[in-house]
């Protein structure tokens, strides 16, 4: 984000680009009137949701569109030359050498049959004609630059032997080894853990400063753009609707879509918990059938008659900004500001109340998977309590045991130790041994929208079955009740005869929610229900869950890896690491000191959107240790930045009660933890 020598000759100039795909129904005009200018050393973020055309632009720049795609208008000039006028030889010299691509899925982008070292050397040998030995030395050098431990060993490994973070680093090494002038990164941190992603982003910043490459960073995560990019272009359904410096755009957006997006992301300010998130109503337009109107007008809150009959031009507002809205002035002047500076990130009244009855009590739960290599401790002695009517959030990175914990509570897995008490009744057995009454009371909402519904059943069949099975209503009222259920998740009876493949991800999750709530459970466990959905769709589902929770007063356990979301929705938060609970507290407790060191690291890694909040930078070294190795002390001691000594490795940490609602599992004294500087603070406070 520094103002390093940004010269004024653009490296890349995309002018009036139109890209279309052939299809049986007509041409899909995926990209329209796109203008992009990139200068050396500049990081431009291309932000948009799925289907907005971001990847299309990236592949168009590389002249690598699929066979049914083509540029219908405009041109792409790279370093003065038109990319589409180059012959094959020049094109080969361009791709991989002057323009590099870091694609989204690392495992799919590396050849599984070749060692890492060979794959990187191949690039050097092809583009520079280096002999084998020199190419190998340069490979090791590149691996060191991306902070890979033991580069010689990594070079000898195959892609599947590396972790996701390591694979992504290898891809970045491959991209940078030719010192490209332009680097296109297509969602490189999606699918990585929060702490790993934070380190990858740091790496990208470091490499950018070293090589002064221009970077086109494609993502849907606005928080990452805030951290990494200088400028941002917001793209909606193939058109760039707003462009400008990140600080300007995120502080005072000049397009209703940007405003809607920013408002649909849960915010960090503590005194605005559980507010209703903004949802952008409607669906993406049909790109085969476009009319002369603003592309966003059907979904826009500010649209007027003019918007439906004219396409707004991209207007240059001062300060190097542009917006594609007739009424940008209305937005720029309005007091609707996304990030308020009011309030402070300090403790406010907690929602915790001791008097509500305990619904679920988990006591020293253990779940171990036995294999030839040893015992894999998925959940290792976790204890917590969930009270009636509250929403318990469980947060942690992949492999921490949160899903395993959920499955044990719901009865899909057997437990190896400890107790699970539901309404004071011991339920630590699988679903096969549970009574029907008990099964009715605990239900689950699943993560993957593609797999959560039976593809061969209609919505009506899916929702009628639980109602019929538990005889919730008599047969005559069945259909009526199904329609009521649909309406409670903001769908209507037109959905009754649809099949899951005809529904969007958000709609599928809503049906999943309706199905879980149909049997009138007491406890609903939500296993990352929104992680696979687009940002604006997530907001709708979150609002829905909160609304249902308020209406039916159901207790919920919400599992996620997204701290913004968990802070927004939970009454109590559990932070898990490697099968153990590190910290329990209300959102206020978790987000302000004292922190468990792991919580502190997590909080400092999450990408936040508000540009006026500073975030401490704590990065965890190494990777998660193997859960098979026995651990005698704190599970976090191998990576803890605040490790105090051997006691952390040898003795299990005590549970320190900071307040009745707040417990931290750490050896560090409470006094020291209280004196830690907060992770988040407002810029103008300092």
């Amino acid at each position, binding site marked *: 984000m520094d103002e390093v020598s940004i010269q004024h000759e653009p490296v890349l100039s995309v002018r009036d680009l139109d890209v279309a795909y052939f299809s049986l129904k007509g041409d899909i005009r995926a990209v329209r009137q796109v203008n992009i200018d990139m200068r050396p050393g500049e990081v431009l973020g291309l932000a948009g949701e*799925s*289907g907005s055309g971001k990847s299309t632009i990236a592949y168009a720049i590389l002249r690598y569109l699929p066979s049914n795609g083509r540029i219908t208008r405009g041109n792409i000039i790279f370093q003065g030359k038109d990319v589409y006028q180059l012959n094959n030889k020049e094109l080969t010299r361009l791709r991989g050498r002057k323009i590099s691509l870091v694609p989204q899925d690392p495992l799919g982008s590396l050849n599984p049959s070749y060692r890492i070292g060979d794959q990187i050397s191949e690039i050097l040998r092809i583009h520079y004609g280096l002999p084998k030995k020199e190419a190998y030395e340069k490979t090791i050098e590149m691996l060191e630059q991306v902070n890979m431990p033991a580069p010689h060993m990594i070079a000898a490994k195959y892609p599947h032997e590396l972790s996701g973070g390591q694979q992504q680093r290898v891809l970045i090494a491959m991209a940078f080894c030719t010192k490209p002038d332009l680097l296109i990164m297509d969602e490189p941190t999606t699918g990585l853990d929060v702490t790993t992603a934070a380190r990858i982003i740091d790496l990208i910043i470091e490499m950018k400063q070293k090589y002064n490459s221009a970077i086109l960073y494609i993502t849907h995560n606005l928080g990452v753009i805030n951290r990494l990019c200088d400028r941002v272009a917001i793209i909606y359904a193939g058109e760039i609707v707003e462009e400008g410096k990140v600080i300007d755009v995120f502080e005072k957006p000049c397009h209703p879509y940007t405003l809607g997006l920013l408002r649909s992301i849960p915010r960090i300010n503590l005194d605005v918990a559980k507010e209703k998130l903004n949802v952008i109503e409607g669906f993406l337009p049909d790109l085969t059938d476009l009319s002369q109107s603003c592309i966003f007008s059907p979904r826009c809150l500010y649209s007027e008659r003019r918007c439906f009959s004219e396409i707004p031009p991209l207007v240059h507002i001062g300060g190097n900004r542009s917006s594609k809205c007739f009424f940008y002035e209305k937005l720029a002047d309005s007091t609707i500001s996304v990030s308020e500076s009011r309030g402070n990130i300090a403790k406010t009244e907690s929602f915790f109340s001791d008097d509500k009855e305990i619904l679920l009590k988990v006591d020293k739960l253990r779940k171990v998977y036995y294999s030839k290599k040893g015992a894999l401790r998925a959940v290792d002695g976790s204890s917590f309590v969930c009270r009636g009517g509250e929403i318990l959030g469980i947060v942690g990175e992949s492999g921490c045991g949160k899903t395993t914990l959920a499955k044990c509570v719901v009865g*899909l897995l057997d437990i190896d130790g400890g107790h699970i008490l539901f309404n004071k009744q011991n339920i630590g057995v699988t679903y096969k041994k*549970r009574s029907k009454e008990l*099964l009715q009371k605990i239900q*689950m909402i699943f993560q993957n929208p593609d797999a959560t519904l*039976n593809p061969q059943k209609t919505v009506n069949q899916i929702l009628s079955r639980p109602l019929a099975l538990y005889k919730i209503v008599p047969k005559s009222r069945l259909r009526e009740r199904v329609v009521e259920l649909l309406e409670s998740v903001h769908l209507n009876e037109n959905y009754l005869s649809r099949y899951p*493949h005809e529904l*969007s*991800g958000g709609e599928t999750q809503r049906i999943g929610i309706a199905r879980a709530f149909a049997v009138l459970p007491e406890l609903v466990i939500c296993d990352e229900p929104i992680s696979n959905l687009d940002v604006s769709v997530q907001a709708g589902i979150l609002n829905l869950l909160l609304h249902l929770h308020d209406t039916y007063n159901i207790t919920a356990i919400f599992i996620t890896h997204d701290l913004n979301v968990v802070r927004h929705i939970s009454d109590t938060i559990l932070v898990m690491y490697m099968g153990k609970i590190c910290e329990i507290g209300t959102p206020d407790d978790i987000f302000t000191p004292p922190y468990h060191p792991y919580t502190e690291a997590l909080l400092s890694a999450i990408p936040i959107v508000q540009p006026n909040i500073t975030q401490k930078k704590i990065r965890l070294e190494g990777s998660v240790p193997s859960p098979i190795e026995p651990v005698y002390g704190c599970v976090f001691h191998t990576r803890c930045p605040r490790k105090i000594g051997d006691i952390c490795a040898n003795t299990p940490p005590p549970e320190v009660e900071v307040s009745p609602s707040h417990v931290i599992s750490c050896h560090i004294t409470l006094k020291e933890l209280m004196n830690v500087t907060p992770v988040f603070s407002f810029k103008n406070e300092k």
Partner: protein
Amino acid sequence: MFLIFRKKDKLKERLSFLRGKKITLSLKIGSIIVFILLFVGIFGSYIAPYSAVEMHVEHIKETASETFLLGTDRFGRDVLSRIIVGTRTTLIIALASTSLALTMGLIVGIFSAYYGKLLDNILMRVNDVFISFPGLIFAMLVIGVLGPGFLSGIIAIALIFVPGIARVARSATLNIVSLEFIDAARIRGESALYIVFCEILPNIYPTIIVEGCIRFSRAILLSASLSYIGLGPPPPTPDWGLMVSEERGYMLQNPWPVFGPCIAISAAVIGANLFGDGLRNIIVAKGSTRKL
């Protein structure tokens, strides 16, 4: 279980998905042949020019002529009529054995995959033993025990097919059983029978149907082979394989009684195969693309 019947009603709605799918030449040719096969099988006795068992003593071992379109055999019986009437025998054996095999194989395969662990291991190892038997020899073994005839032919061929179908059903089920809606059904308290028949089966029956069609073509060949070696329905029932084996000796004098049934067998096998193949092109997995 009424949901299974509902499935058949939905078939009409589902047939609309045929629009836009690749209907290949194989499917067209295959369907025609299979249709002819079924038609002849049902109405054979009415369309045959002569009776299948009547012996025309004056016209023994005649080659093809206007009166006897494919000639006569050693007893003076019209070859064409025998082929036409014999279609029914072959068809019944092939259809019955395939259906029986599909049913048994499905049950073994689905439950093996659903319960997993020990049951799966045991069933699949037993399955492996059966698969390793050469088909025809195994059929000979079964018929040797049961004695030749219609029913034993059906059972023998079915037993040959069950292991292969079980494997296909098992792998199709394994793809489904790890999906989340199965978990949702389990924690809803559904019985194993319900999950197998109402959640899993509707998702795998297209694969099984295609498998069945291909097995059907092999069943025709097997049925003919069995009767060729004398283990099929006994004479005078007209049966293609039997006709070939009986008339083999006189082939040099009059090839028609041998060629006729051979061509019938080949045509039926190829036609059924093409049909199954074409069907596979239509049965494509749904729901891969999704808008968010």
